[in-house]
């Protein structure tokens, strides 16, 4: 690897990590507070800066200045480690997601994703599964019964949803025949009869629904936020956390929301693909910029969808969650694979 490509990679990392994930998570927190307020006929934060847009940054400053309290009986090392695991995993998973097509700058081809690896999708599944360690360890190390319950729930939930999540993606793998996310997106840029873009949502509607529901479970958001469950478990796994350590969990949750949205879009909504844009008579560089822009517009729409769903659906009870994931999602996911396989066999 020569120096120029190293610099390009660094620029991409900084753009994704700070520009998209950290900054994006802050804006998502703000968006969540505003949208939840609108849903409940309130105004929400509107004092700090124009329309309250600086509120999340003020909150971060507040969190940084707070005292770091560790319970006496807690395991100090793991107590410190848990939020680090959460945030590192949340910031890493975006690495394999292509946010734009290959572009040519000064005769050098640049792929718009950080880690161009063959097993992108597997990497994604593996890393999102590690994320639960942060929550479980936080719950255990706090030495608090509510935290421990939150951590336990998180692990049990992971085992339940990961199966359906993996199986819902297999349908796409069977169609595309590759684990490279950039290839999956490129395959989606074609058209049927020149009208309908070949997005995977039209091929795998059932897989999409299962993936979406499990994505909600993965981000620990409201229909499935049992690890937090503030009415039952005080605050769940982050009960004993203060200051920026709590802030890191918070940031990780919202970074995960952004990543989940990006994965959903990459797999089912054609990633950076702008329908019919390649037929327009515009320069390739401008087209690439448009594609990157469209990718983030799609991500924003999906994040808003995540927020709206949170303020619509009440939390599942624990047995209901288990019933839904094991007795409904799993058989449906397997059936989806079966049907997809039969159709592929017939078509070929």
């Amino acid at each position, binding site marked *: 690897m020569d120096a120029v490509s190293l610099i390009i990679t660094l620029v991409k990392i900084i753009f994704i990590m700070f520009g998209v994930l950290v900054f994006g998570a802050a804006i998502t927190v703000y968006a969540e507070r505003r949208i939840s307020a609108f849903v409940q006929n309130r105004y929400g934060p509107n004092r700090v800066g124009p329309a309250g847009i600086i509120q999340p940054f003020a909150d971060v400053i507040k969190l940084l200045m707070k005292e770091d309290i560790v319970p006496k009986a807690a395991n100090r090392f793991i107590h410190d480690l848990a939020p680090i695991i959460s945030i590192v995993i949340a910031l890493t998973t975006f690495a394999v997601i292509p946010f734009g097509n290959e572009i040519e700058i000064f005769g050098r081809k640049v792929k718009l994703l950080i880690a161009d690896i063959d097993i992108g999708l597997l990497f994604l599944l593996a890393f999102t599964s590690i994320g639960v360690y942060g929550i479980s360890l936080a719950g255990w190390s706090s030495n608090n019964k509510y935290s421990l319950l939150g951590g336990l729930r998180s692990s049990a939930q992971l085992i339940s949803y990961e199966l359906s999540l993996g199986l819902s993606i297999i349908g796409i793998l069977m169609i595309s025949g590759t684990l490279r996310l950039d290839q999956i997106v490129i395959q989606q840029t074609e058209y049927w009869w020149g009208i309908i873009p070949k997005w995977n949502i039209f091929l795998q509607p059932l897989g999409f*629904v299962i993936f979406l529901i499990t994505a909600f479970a993965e981000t620990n958001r409201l229909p499935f936020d049992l690890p937090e469950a503030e009415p039952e478990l005080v605050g769940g796994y982050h009960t004993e956390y203060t200051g920026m350590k709590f802030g890191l969990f918070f940031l990780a949750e919202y970074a995960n929301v952004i990543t989940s949205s990006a994965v959903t879009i990459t797999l089912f909504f054609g990633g950076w693909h702008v329908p019919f844009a390649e037929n327009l008579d515009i320069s390739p560089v401008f087209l690439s910029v448009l594609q990157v822009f469209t990718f983030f517009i799609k991500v924003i729409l999906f994040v808003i969808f995540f927020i709206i769903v949170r303020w*619509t*659906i009440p939390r599942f009870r624990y047995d209901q969650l288990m019933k839904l994931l094991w007795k409904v999602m799993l058989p449906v996911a397997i059936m989806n694979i079966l049907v997809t396989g039969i159709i592929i066999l017939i078509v070929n």
Partner: protein
Amino acid sequence: MEQPRKIIRKENLNIWQRMYVPEILKGIKLTLSQIFKPRFTIQFPEERFKPDGSFRGRPVLVTENGIERCVACGLCSRVCPSLAIEVQASETELPKERYPIKFEINMVRCIFCGFCEEVCPEEAIVMSNEYLLAFTSQEEAIFGKEKLLKSTDELKERLEYLRMFR
């Protein structure tokens, strides 16, 4: 007496409702429709709530042509449950013969019950529509005559309300 039902659960759901997803979409539609509804919050420092005549704000003394109606009978002071009012009477050349030389209401003590207004035979003390009462010291909270006097024009709404409903 009817036995309380133990299981609160609708049993007669059809398959469409059991599928969750359509019902969730219905819920999302409701949530989205709420976003565009008007909000009732008053943005306080910029916008102020304007109470109407029935509001019991801080008690004030009514003046007509610059002279207070009060004849310093002391009934308000007598009826005040929290002993917030202090009146000292004196004589005057005017036809009403008596006037309060000193009239103090301790706003820290006042509970805005409106008894003083109710008992007053001259309609001289009424509740205004002012509600912004914040003090930095106990002394500041004692309102003398200079802060209490208000003309009938300023208190028009309250006086009309009293005339109609008392």
